[in-house]
């Protein structure tokens, strides 16, 4: 029941938003997202007390094809549910700051609609339900990124984004259909088949190594585009840069985690032999992504673009951690998913705050802002240092565990992947120096500091950065059983 509420309440609120205007729409959207957060926290407490048993929801959906509407929450899902529920109010609040959006009620409604899609992805335990929500999450973000963007190139950019992701997803669908036909007795009627996650695990296990090898790529195509992993990333920098700030936050903070979550839940345990065949290649691609993203980030002038490439680099490390197939690497990926979600949303929030004040994101035009903006500088610095993975911050815990996992897999891989920390220090500190310090610019004397509402948006992010940095055990403890179960299925 709680699961169904968590997934569908934002959708209901989004539908209600249709009837609200102006301030009422804001109040409704924000209220709904806070209620959602409260329920998510309540669910976490209930989970800690009673375990995952109470969260299973299994309804008959398409009986003639043996497909059930199966949702459930375990520790891994719960981490991402909490992340989503925490970030959505902040993303909505960012949207409130933009008075210039036309038809703002529709914008808030789409954000909430997106939340339903995301939560559905993180909780579904049936392959076709998973695919369903996977695509449902794409529709609102396409409109959020396209219809409210003021970029002149918004049409080709969002078009490319949509086509890339949907083509990847269609490959995944083909893989799922293939696996689905391997389940059950397989005679005549579709009703005898099943697309439940357990049936998929069993069906995948029966396949030979060569079949698993290509089913792996069918499924991985969707995740590879969504995360994105080099060389499937070409949609990402443009889309992140040209989308409105809230859409960029949704894309980078939460949607990207769909890919990593998908790997953990729907790839590793389903085709373990396929994974071990391609593990090395994916590892190499991930490490190329780390270095490539970092090197390009160093040369960026546009703040949003810089953060986009930095995100590409950090995601590479998460992928490498996942494909190390070591418990510590997978655990690191979970913590880093949360930390990266908080960090990247914080970074884009900073970029948005500066852009709204100065009208530019170009580092060449900025400089010397810190004098009149002490609060903004502090927030910027905290987010930045967490992204750089300074100890005491969430980024440190995540990246440390990830690197330990990669190191266990291969010493040299670990060494090269470790460069990410050095690189990110280079490009992020350069960004800070160009924007906040340095010689005065046209805006140094006129810029205003964060107001109370904006500060209030940063407070939870900063709190989470330190919580993740100081007490990562809260989340490691939650995800540990799920991760060890996945690794058992993979056979490690």
């Amino acid at each position: 029941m709680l699961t169904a509420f968590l997934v569908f309440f934002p959708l209901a609120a989004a539908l209600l938003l249709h009837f609200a205007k102006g301030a009422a729409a804001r109040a409704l959207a924000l209220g709904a997202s806070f209620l959602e957060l409260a329920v998510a926290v309540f669910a976490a407490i209930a989970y800690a007390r009673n375990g995952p048993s109470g969260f299973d929801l299994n309804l008959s959906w398409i009986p003639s094809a043996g497909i059930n509407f199966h949702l459930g929450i375990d520790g891994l899902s719960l981490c991402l549910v909490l992340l989503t529920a925490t970030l959505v109010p902040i993303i909505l609040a960012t949207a409130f700051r933009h008075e210039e959006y036309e038809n703002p009620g529709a914008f808030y409604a789409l954000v909430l609609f997106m939340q339903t899609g995301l939560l559905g992805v993180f909780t579904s335990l049936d392959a076709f339900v998973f695919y369903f929500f996977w695509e449902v999450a794409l529709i609102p973000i396409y409109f959020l990124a396209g219809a409210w963007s003021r970029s002149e190139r918004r049409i080709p950019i969002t078009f490319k984004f949509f086509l890339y992701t949907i083509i990847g997803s269609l490959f995944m669908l083909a893989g799922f259909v293939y696996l689905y036909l391997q389940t059950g007795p397989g005679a005549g009627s579709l009703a005898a088949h099943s697309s439940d996650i357990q049936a998929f695990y069993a069906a995948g296990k029966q396949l030979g190594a060569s079949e698993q090898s290509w089913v792996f790529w069918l499924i991985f195509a969707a995740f590879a585009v969504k995360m994105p992993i080099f060389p499937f990333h070409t949609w990402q920098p443009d889309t992140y840069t040209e989308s409105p700030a809230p859409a960029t936050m949704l894309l980078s903070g939460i949607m990207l985690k769909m890919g990593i979550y998908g790997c953990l839940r729907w790839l590793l345990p389903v085709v373990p032999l396929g994974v071990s065949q391609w593990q090395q290649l994916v590892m190499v691609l991930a490490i190329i992504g780390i270095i490539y993203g970092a090197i390009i980030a160093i040369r960026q002038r546009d703040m949003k673009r810089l953060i986009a490439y930095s995100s590409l680099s950090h995601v590479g490390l998460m992928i490498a951690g996942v494909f190390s197939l070591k418990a510590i690497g997978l655990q690191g990926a979970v913590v880093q998913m949360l930390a990266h979600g908080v960090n990247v949303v914080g970074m884009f929030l900073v970029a948005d705050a500066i852009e709204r004040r100065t009208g530019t994101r170009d580092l060449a035009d900025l400089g010397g802002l810190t004098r009149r903006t002490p609060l903004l500088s502090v927030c910027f610095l905290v987010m930045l240092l967490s992204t750089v993975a300074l100890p005491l911050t969430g980024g440190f815990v995540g990246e440390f565990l990830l690197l330990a996992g990669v190191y266990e897999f291969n010493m040299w891989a670990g060494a090269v992947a470790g460069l990410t920390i050095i690189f990110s220090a280079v490009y992020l500190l350069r960004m800070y120096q160009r924007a906040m310090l340095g010689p005065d610019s046209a805006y140094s004397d006129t810029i205003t500091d964060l107001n109370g509402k904006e500060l209030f948006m940063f407070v939870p992010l900063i709190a989470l950065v330190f919580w993740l940095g100081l007490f990562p055990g809260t989340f490691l403890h939650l995800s540990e059983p799920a991760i060890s179960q996945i690794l058992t299925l993979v056979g490690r």
Partner: protein
Amino acid sequence: MLPIVLLSVFGIVNLFLGFLRSNRVLLPFALVVLALVFGLNLLDWNHAGSLPGLFDSPYVAQMLTVNNYSVAFSGIVLLTALVLLPFSRSYVAAGEPNLAEYYSLLLFSLVGAIMMVSYNHLIMLFVGIEILSISMYCLAGSDKRNVRSNEAALKYFLQGAFATGILLFGIALVYGATGSFQLDGLAAGIANPANASLQPMLYVGVLMMVIGIGFKVSAAPFHFWTPDVYEGTPTFFTAFMSTVVKTAGFAAFLKLLVVALPGTSAVWLPTIIAMCVLTLLLGNVGAAVQTSAKRMLAYSSVSHAGYLLLGLVAGRGQLSGPAAQGIFFYSLAYSIATVAAFGVLKLVSAQRQREDYAGLAGLARTNPLLAFVMTVAMLSLGGIPLTGGFFGKFFIFTAVAGQGYIWLVVFAVLMSMVGIYYYLRPVIAMYLRPAEPGNDAPIVVDGFQSATLVLLAVLTLVLGILPGFLSGLL
């Protein structure tokens, strides 16, 4: 059986209503008739042949059979016509003098469509196809003063008549080889070893029938008439053509192949597979390069014929199974989405005088409802989840993959990626591009049409969210 009788009778009554000075009564009358017939049709569900009297007599029963299969497909056809009719309001408003004839022809064509889905005798198949086609030839040319419309009618009629001849020739050859017009008699005749010496004749006949029906459902390489005819025909009738004709055609096709001709699958299966591949390729690639939304929809209707042909590939054994289910669900989702798309296009093009993507620009700002309905329709035609079109494709693809044709499904998936490319273009135009200056007044839509559009969008979403209601019917 009652639907056929009532549609014929009311079709004639409707002709007489044309003598009235006002044509205001025509649309309500046609709507009531269709709603009544739709309801009566559903009463036959699970009551095959239970109406006593004349209709159960062997003479009738050997010609037409009413069973769940025919009821289901008649239901789609009647529902499509019912939800399409409100968009003919502009004819009422414009005082179109021949409106009564149009409505009568529509009702008659539905008689043909219902015969096509419930035939049990090849003559009935032929008569059904002809009733439907001849009505359509007339309606394609209904915009008499427009050269394009005349061209469409002539083109459709000449090529259609030719295809009909081929179909009839095929029926004759098949009859010669088996000695029967009845579907079960045909199957028995094909299986009978005494007819083995006539196999070449049988095979040629089967191929000719496949070609004849393939033309009617616009399967490649017999699709060349489609874009021109669809573009020239008044949009209201294009919508009718691309939904009702296709649904009835495929229901008839599946019945023919599965019930009467399973013994000759060695001939028709490779043919259908080749047609399917070609149709998917030409339909999707053709649609991708269009700049006119109406022409894109014409090519997309060719591509949908390809997906439905894919369903035929899986059709083995009986009329209740994954293939019939898939084709039923697909036809329903496709018909609803197509009516919505053409409905919006008709309203927009009537006011803005253009049928290309630029005519749709800025619609999200001026008419959010129209833009939303069009988007839902496009997503459904593109097969994106949350809409009925996704599950239509899903059921057909799983049925075909279940028969072992993985490569064919992979090809169809690749083609539906192309489909997403062109279905997104109207959405981009509506939401991301500003309207042309001077041509950006809100489209005038009356409440009845708005309500119909909302109903169509809701139906599409319901099919996409709760497909379980309808997926297990057949």
